[in-house]
Every structure is written in structure tokens, then in C-alpha cells.
């Protein structure tokens, strides 16, 4: 059972240099369980590097990662997955020539049992894929359809469903709607909304403040490699966020206490 007042994940003092350039510089970043946390900022603000540190796709130079208050080692994508962090990258997520079920289970194929355990259990994976898609209200013609033939929104939903299926503690979405049209974008956001309602914790890079204010609980703004600030969406205006993006800020963090008022906790005290 996770305690909603302890951060699900915390990045402390993270720095990553490429050559002489600091992509991120001494960044602190905190996400609480059950929140949808937006990550905003201009190009080269360090958003991608930040999430890649959490996803294990980039080896940070300094800094610690804590999950549920405990320090953990994340040096590779395998490490991150082991700790329940799933990342959906903009365009690297799916193998086009495989079908929906195969993509959902890519790298985690379910095998048959006993002597047949060297063989892939196609039927099981197809059934499970159909189940998780249904649970997330994603409608696709067939889990046997190759991803190649699907729309951008459908593909992105499959990539996200993959993260959800494996009971990720934290799901990171790297600009999930960057290349999508209006209708397709709506489809992906319906899914993120559904995930929020089902209690998943999500970090989402986004450039669209309407989406951020529509979907997210808090927003962290990055500016030239440092954190400008973290705001509670309910207590901020879009102007506040725009100012942070343009002018930067003094690395503040509006904590989360007022975010989800928790009456049951009040009774405990």
C-alpha cells in the first residue's frame, strides 16, 4: 500500500552533461502516487533528458532516485522496468511489422508451460491484449492486426496499453500526441483520462497547455536545464506556466497536500 504523502518517485540533484553542455543541472523532481504530472518547457529545456534518467535510457552523472522513499539504482531500461517504471517514447515504441498482441508483449513474451515452454503462447497473449484494451476502452479491429496498418492514435494507445498492462507504478509519456491530428489526440487523451481515473501515476511531456490544464494535477516547467518550478494546476493559470517557460523561475515546488484532500488521513492524526 502506497502512502499518498510519500513521493512515488523522487529525483534529487540530477545532472547530465553531454560534452561540456549540461542538459540538466542539479534537478529535483517529485511525483506523488496517483497524480498526472505534466512536464513543460521549450526545446532543449531538458525535459527529455529528465525522463530518460528516470527511464534508465540515459546514465546521469550525479543524482539519486528514490522510489517510495527508498534509494534505487537505475542505470538501464531493464533496471527501470524492474522498479515498475514504463516509458512510452514518441516514435520508438512499436515494431510496425508485428501485430498488436506481439507489440504489447514485446520483450516479455508469455511462453507455454512444461516441455513446450520454448514456444510462445500466442492465444494467451492475444486474450490478455484484448482484455487490457477493453479495460482501457481502446477500440481496435483486432489484436492480430499489424501495427503498421493502424492510425497514429491507435498506435500510441497500444504503446500506452503496454505500459499499463505490466502494472507499472509510473508511466512516462514522451509527447504522446506530438504527431497526431485533433481526433487522434482526443483518442489518446481519453486514454490518459481513463488511466487517471483508474489510479495510475503518469508523467507526461506536453507542449499544449490546454491539455495540461485539462488533464494534469501538477506541472513542472524546465528552463535551460534547470527546474523553473512545479505548480499545482488548480491553483495556477496558464499565464503562470507561460511565464515560467519564457522567463524561468527559482526552482520552487508547490507540494501536493491540497491536491487530493485525504479525509481518511485526517482521522489518523
Amino acid at each position: 500500500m502506497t502512502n499518498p504523502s510519500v513521493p512515488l518517485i523522487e529525483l534529487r540533484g540530477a545532472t547530465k552533461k553531454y560534452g561540456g553542455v549540461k542538459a540538466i543541472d542539479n534537478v529535483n523532481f517529485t511525483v506523488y502516487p496517483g497524480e498526472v504530472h505534466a512536464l513543460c518547457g521549450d526545446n532543449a529545456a531538458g525535459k527529455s533528458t529528465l525522463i530518460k534518467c528516470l527511464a534508465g535510457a540515459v546514465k546521469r552523472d550525479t543524482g539519486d532516485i528514490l522510489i517510495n522513499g527508498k534509494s534505487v539504482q537505475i542505470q538501464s531500461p531493464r533496471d527501470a522496468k524492474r522498479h515498475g517504471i514504463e516509458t512510452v517514447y514518441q516514435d520508438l515504441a512499436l515494431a510496425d511489422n508485428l501485430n498488436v498482441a506481439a507489440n504489447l508483449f514485446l520483450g516479455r513474451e508469455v511462453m507455454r508451460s512444461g516441455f513446450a515452454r520454448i514456444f510462445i503462447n500466442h492465444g494467451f497473449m492475444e486474450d490478455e491484449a484484448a482484455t487490457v484494451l477493453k479495460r482501457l476502452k481502446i477500440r481496435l479491429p483486432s489484436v492480430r492486426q499489424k501495427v503498421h496498418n493502424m492510425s497514429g492514435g491507435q498506435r500510441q494507445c497500444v504503446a500506452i496499453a503496454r505500459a499499463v498492462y505490466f502494472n507499472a507504478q509510473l508511466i512516462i509519456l514522451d509527447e504522446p500526441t506530438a504527431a497526431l491530428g485533433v481526433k487522434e489526440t482526443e483518442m489518446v487523451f481519453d486514454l490518459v483520462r481513463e488511466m487517471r481515473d483508474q489510479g495510475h501515476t503518469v508523467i507526461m511531456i506536453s507542449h499544449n497547455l490546454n491539455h495540461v490544464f485539462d488533464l494534469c494535477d501538477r506541472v513542472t516547467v524546465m528552463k535551460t536545464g534547470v527546474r523553473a518550478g512545479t505548480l499545482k494546476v488548480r491553483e495556477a493559470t496558464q499565464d503562470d506556466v507561460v511565464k515560467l517557460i519564457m522567463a524561468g523561475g527559482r526552482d520552487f515546488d508547490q507540494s501536493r497536500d491540497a491536491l487530493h484532500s485525504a479525509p481518511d488521513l485526517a482521522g489518523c492524526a
Partner: protein
Amino acid sequence: MTELSIQNGDPRKVWARLGDVPAALYLLVILFVGLSVASPYFLTQANLINIVLQASVVLIISLGMTLIIITEGIDLSLGPVLSFAGVVFGAALVAGWSFPVAMIAGIVAAMLIGGLNGYLIAYHDLQPFIVTLGTFGLAMSFAMSISGGESISGLPSGVQWFNDGHILGLPFPIWATAALFLLTHILLKHTRFGRYVYAIGGNRKALQLAGVRVNLWQTSIYVYAAALAGFASFIMTARTNAAHPTVGMGLEFDAIAAAVLGGASFSGGKGTLFGAAAGALAVATLRNGLNLMNVAAEWQSAAVGVVIIAAVAGDAIRGRT
């Protein structure tokens, strides 16, 4: 929520389905119809078995080649690898080693080259074309040096069974080809190995980010393809009852041709074993037909070349619509 379903009646869809049928299959049908009419000898049992026998070695190599092409790679070394494995097999037999041990020695020799290919391509991100061009020379030199540049003859008479032996009325190479086809098919469709063959060709980076040891799997694909070539070398050795250091010359190109006729694409992600088998059979049928039609031997290669270009051009045109 939006749902974008594909309409079944869409004529473009039907046309695309036709495009999925590899050129090799069209070619086979055309050749069969044409040659049945043109030559009374073509459709005899003896001739058909002869075609499959002729196709067997190329077909076995094309199985591995197809896997590699699906991963967006290529293996030019498979011909010399076959020569090398055959020479090791022959030398081991002449040295008095038992059959199973000599076979293992030949296949291991092949797998070493395959392992080197895979290691350089997967772990060091070198281009498959260049790497296998290099190991092409390496395998050829190994074969030459072990054999002293001569055919290794005086093999035990049992070797010929790999070519002449019959099981239930069919020659051994046909059984071996069928068995290796089935094995590779099962690997490709029902194991992680096969899943990752397609995934490497489809999106290598995604597979890596999914936490898969991509380099290791990719290397194993080259090792497997080399092992198949090693096995094919036994049939090749049995045909002439001698191990010749250049016997594999050009086989890699026939295997590439078979794979491409069968629908494999150099841009990766695409290709089937059925297609490759049909491709190998189509080339063998074409050569057989040219023989039956008394076309001079020196023009047969040209005919095969023209057919390959025409087939691939046809695919490209269908792919564009």
C-alpha cells in the same frame, strides 16, 4: 472514442493483398504451366525430384539468409562458410574421426564464422555488407589452407548417403531440406528467437528499450544461418564425394535471390520462409526448364538474372500502387 475500421470492400486493399503474394509464387506457377506444355518430360516424377534436389542446398541457405534479411542485414559469407564447413568435415573424416564428430566439427566451424559476423554487426554496429564481405575472404582462406587448395577426396563411402540415401522412396536431401524448413519455421513463428528476428527488422531500438538483449539475439541469428550452411555442406560434399574448398562459390547470391524473389525486403522487417523456399524452387525450375529447352548453359545465368530483376521490379510497382 474514435474507431478507424478498414473497409473490407476497398479495392486497394485487395490489390495490396495480391501484392503480398511473393513474385516467386507467380514465377513458379508460370514456369510449371509453361514447361508442362512445352516439354513432355517436365512433369515426370524423376524430373520433379531432380528439381527439388537441385534446389535443396540453396533452399537451406536461403532459410538463414531470409532471417538475416528480415533483420535488415545480409550475409555474403554463407557461400565460403559452406566451403569451409565442408572442408573441415572432409578433413575430419579423412583424419579418421567418426561421422557425428566430423559433422559437429563442420557445423562448429561454420558457427564460429557466423558468431564473428554477428558479434561485429550487433555489438559493434558495423555494416552487415562490409563485415560479411570481410568474413567471406576469411572463410575462403580457412577452407583453402585446410585443404591445401585441393579437393579432399578418399572420404569414407558412407558420405554419399547424404546425397543418394533414400528414406521412404525420397532422397535424403529432400528430407533434410523439409526438416530444416520446418525447424526454422517453428523457430520463426513460435519462439522468442523468431519474434525478435522480426522485431529487430521492424524496430530494433524499441526492442532494446523493451529491455531485450538485442545484441545477443542478433548474433544468434547469424550463428544459426551459418549452422544451416554448415549442414548444407554435407549434402554438397556428398554430391561429388569430395570436399572442395570453393564448392560454395556464389551460393550466397542464389540464396539472396531466392529470399528476395520470395518477398524479403532489404529495408528489413519483411520476408517469409515459404517465399524463400518458393524462390529457391523457382530458380531451380527455371534452370531445369532452360536445360529441357536446350538453352545453352552460358545463357542460363543471364536468364536467372533477368527474372530476378523483373520480379523485384514487379514487386516495386505493385508496392507503389
